[in-house]
């Protein structure tokens, strides 16, 4: 642990800065340039991560204009069980997800073949292929973009935190005192705005890389068309006899981790809690809804069949030659 911290401190001032300068204005790969509408995924090879937090700092710097600037004092909210979520005085928190920190480095110390190893893992929104946060958002504030990004529109979000509850990793984080709810019924509905990684959608629109990818001195992350990223993840996993996380979790995500250590081991080792997601197996949250959609196709057909059946039975009961409409 201590060696890790000293290494991190060293790297913060050295490698990270050098990497940032070298990589500045690095464009997206040619295959994903422009708004082609294809689903993009990121590949995170955790063997390469050295925990320097250059990505965390770059994320905070680049996304600072999107961060909440709440006005105090906050309106009183009713009933009393509604609590204020205020991170505005804790903007420098970097060891978990907050409205001001959309990416953090998670640490896992595991024993492999009798040897203790420490891995550092960049954690942020997984950008699910069928994101429950966007599907279940009652206002359409959380939505999936064609290029695979799931983002929350801070101009519309009311901060009900439903997205955080339905997210299997509980990623979105709330800040009270900002957003649309202040203009509606601040005392009785809403509680701010939810924030999370938007994978630098505005940079991608311009053909630039997300800040965390661009600045990384170790090239831990890579972005590209999902099928290519998945193929590459499998190739690496095969080569190192490793494991993949994010390809199938929650029905498939656009963040694919590759690790030489099983993810259930890493899941046990990482610190979990509010703003600190685990690496647990996740079933497809929307699978039941997708199955019921099929029932919605069958039900009208059954309704038609029942009505036709009733009409046929009634017409058979009528004496021969009687008119239907009298």
């Amino acid at each position, binding site marked *: 642990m201590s060696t890790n911290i000293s290494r991190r401190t060293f790297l913060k001032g050295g490698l990270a800065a050098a990497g940032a300068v070298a990589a500045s204005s690095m464009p997206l790969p040619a295959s994903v340039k422009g708004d082609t509408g294809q689903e993009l995924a990121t590949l995170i090879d955790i063997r390469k991560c050295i925990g320097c937090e250059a990505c965390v700092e770059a994320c905070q710097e680049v996304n600072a204009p999107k961060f909440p600037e709440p006005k105090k004092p906050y309106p009183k909210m009713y*009933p009393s*069980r*509604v609590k204020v979520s205020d991170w505005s005085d804790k903007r420098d928190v970097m060891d978990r997800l907050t409205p001001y920190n959309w990416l953090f480095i998670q640490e896992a110390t595991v024993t492999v073949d009798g040897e203790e190893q420490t891995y550092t893992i960049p954690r942020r929104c997984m950008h699910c*292929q*069928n994101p429950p946060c966007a*599907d*279940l*958002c*009652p*206002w*359409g504030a959380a*939505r*999936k*973009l*064609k290029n695979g990004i799931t983002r929350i*529109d801070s101009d*519309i979000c009311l901060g*009900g*935190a*439903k997205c955080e*509850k*339905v997210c299997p990793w509980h990623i979105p984080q709330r800040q009270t005192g900002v957003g649309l709810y202040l203009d509606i019924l601040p005392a009785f*509905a809403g509680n701010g705005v939810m924030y999370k990684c938007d994978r630098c959608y505005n940079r991608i629109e311009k053909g630039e890389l997300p800040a965390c990818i661009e600045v990384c001195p170790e090239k831990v992350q890579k972005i590209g068309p999902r099928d290519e990223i998945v193929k590459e993840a499998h190739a690496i996993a095969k080569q190192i006899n490793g494991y993949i996380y994010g390809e199938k979790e929650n*029905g*498939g995500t656009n963040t694919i981790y590759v690790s030489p250590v099983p993810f259930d081991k890493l899941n046990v080792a990482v610190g979990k809690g509010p703003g600190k997601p685990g690496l647990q197996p996740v079933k497809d*949250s*929307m699978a*039941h*809804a*997708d199955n*019921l*959609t099929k*029932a*919605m196709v*069958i*039900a*009208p*057909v*059954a*309704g*038609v069949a*029942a*009505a*036709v059946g*009733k*009409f046929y039975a*009634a017409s058979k009961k009528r004496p021969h030659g009687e008119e*239907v*409409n*009298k």
Partner: protein
Amino acid sequence: MKARTYELTLTQKWLKRFYILLFVVMAFTGFGQMPIFKRYYISDIPGLGWSADFYTTHYIHYLGAALLLGLIMYWIIDYFASGRSEFKLTATAYVRIILLAGIVITGIFRVLKNLPDVVFSPGFTLFIDIAHLGFMMLYLFAALIFLIFKSKWTKGIEA
């Protein structure tokens, strides 16, 4: 020429009761899509703890939507096959039908949006979300007014 009252058959009476029950469930689980049941202690009422689980209310809402679609299709076919020779729809029935159509159409788009690989524009997503809620609120308001004034869906064929 005098408009007569149309007496519902036994099957129609049971279908009407089922429709009202279905609508109450749909309205409840629909409002439950907003994070208000826990905030306002509704899920604290004994037996309603499930209403704070968004996946449960969503599942019930989808199930109800399937039943509602089946029922609506039954009524449409039944009306054109035999119903229109037995009764007429009132003016307030047409108001209800228009609002119901609004709920159903926006609901269908909402379900489509939730499918994997289906992505609507941000503006359209917002529109269908708010329109679905708006049509439902209008329907409930209209149903209340029609209940107060005892305005039914059907009337008898003029003699």
